[in-house]
């Protein structure tokens, strides 16, 4: 275990690291007609009761698929949520009925939108590590994807906020 001072250094060091962050060519996972890319997760503060995962799913097939849920050994519980800003107020809600991945379309789980909520992380998600998450699709079935733990691009210097 890290001491509080070390933890602070490690967590905040992400701010510095992110200044030099260049999005890597995301690992691509193919599952049936789905191409899954850009899976990432934010580092979690110590004791944070929830982490978050984002991913891009492209459906190259001719049949609509649906992301029904997710699970991870790194968290006690995993849910699909939607986040929105309504009149400047942040709202977060579980997604009912899954996230539709229409044929021929790309669906992004991304900041301020749909995301995977990792409730009860077993340990803080640290920059440079990966969080294994199994995505469960209606047709493509279960797909295991490694989510890279990193800062949002541009987050540290604030020049971009997705």
């Amino acid at each position, binding site marked *: 275990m890290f001491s509080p001072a070390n933890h602070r250094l490690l967590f*905040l060091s992400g*701010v510095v690291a992110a200044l030099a962050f260049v999005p890597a060519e995301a690992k691509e996972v193919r599952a049936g007609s789905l191409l899954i890319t850009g899976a990432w997760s934010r580092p979690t*503060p110590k*004791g*944070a009761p929830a982490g978050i995962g984002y991913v891009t799913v492209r459906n190259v097939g001719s049949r609509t698929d649906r992301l029904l849920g997710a699970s991870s050994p790194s968290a006690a519980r995993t849910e699909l949520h939607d986040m929105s800003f309504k009149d*400047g107020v942040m709202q977060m809600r*579980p997604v009912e009925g899954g996230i539709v991945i229409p044929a021929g379309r790309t669906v992004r789980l991304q900041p301020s939108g749909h995301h995977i909520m990792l409730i009860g992380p077993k340990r803080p998600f640290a920059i440079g590590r990966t969080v294994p998450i199994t995505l469960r699709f209606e047709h493509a079935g279960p797909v295991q994807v490694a989510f890279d733990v990193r800062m949002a691009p541009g987050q540290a210097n*604030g020049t971009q906020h997705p």
Partner: protein
Amino acid sequence: MTIASLALAAGALSACGGPNNRQGGTGEDRKAAASASYGGSFTLVDQNGRTVTERDLIGKPSLIFFGFTFCPEVCPTTLLHISKWLKDLGSDGGKINAFYVTIDPQRDTQKQLEQYLTSFDPRIRGLTGTPAQIDQIAKAYRVYYKRVNLQNGDYVMDHSTMIYMIDARGRFAGPIGYGEPDEHVMPLLRDLLAGRKPKSRQPDPRTSIERS
């Protein structure tokens, strides 16, 4: 995050009730506070067990942000930004208070805040209290927050996301919106430190109130 959503944030504030008349401080400070549309008396406790009241806002400018630790995106991102700003201010970083007030006191106990805040700049003071105490400061600052119970027995919190800039006399000096870039924020903080009115790029929420 764009100007449009910042304007929305201002709009949300305008929808959250009238001015609060409970004011703190004495003499000039009290008069100054009475002229502000945000603020009022409160009593909370920080992550180290120290009591914090509206009197702690007098003497140094402050940033106040309302959030909760179950929030996976907006709150840790905002705390990382505040940490960076304090660092980038160099020695002036110590001349500004930074408060993180939980709107979820059920989960965010003093112990939880103590642990959570070890991940951020140690100058950030996390404040919690009883639900009534949180309600009091939220009303004073017209923070919108709402507990939403989920079917699985869990709950989430809706909340407004702006950072309040407070001058050294405890008066509201302007908002900083979620995701506002550092190059906008740093001049605001330097104005705040110098005792000048920060030239916020966001619409002043009070203007929206008058219009609505």
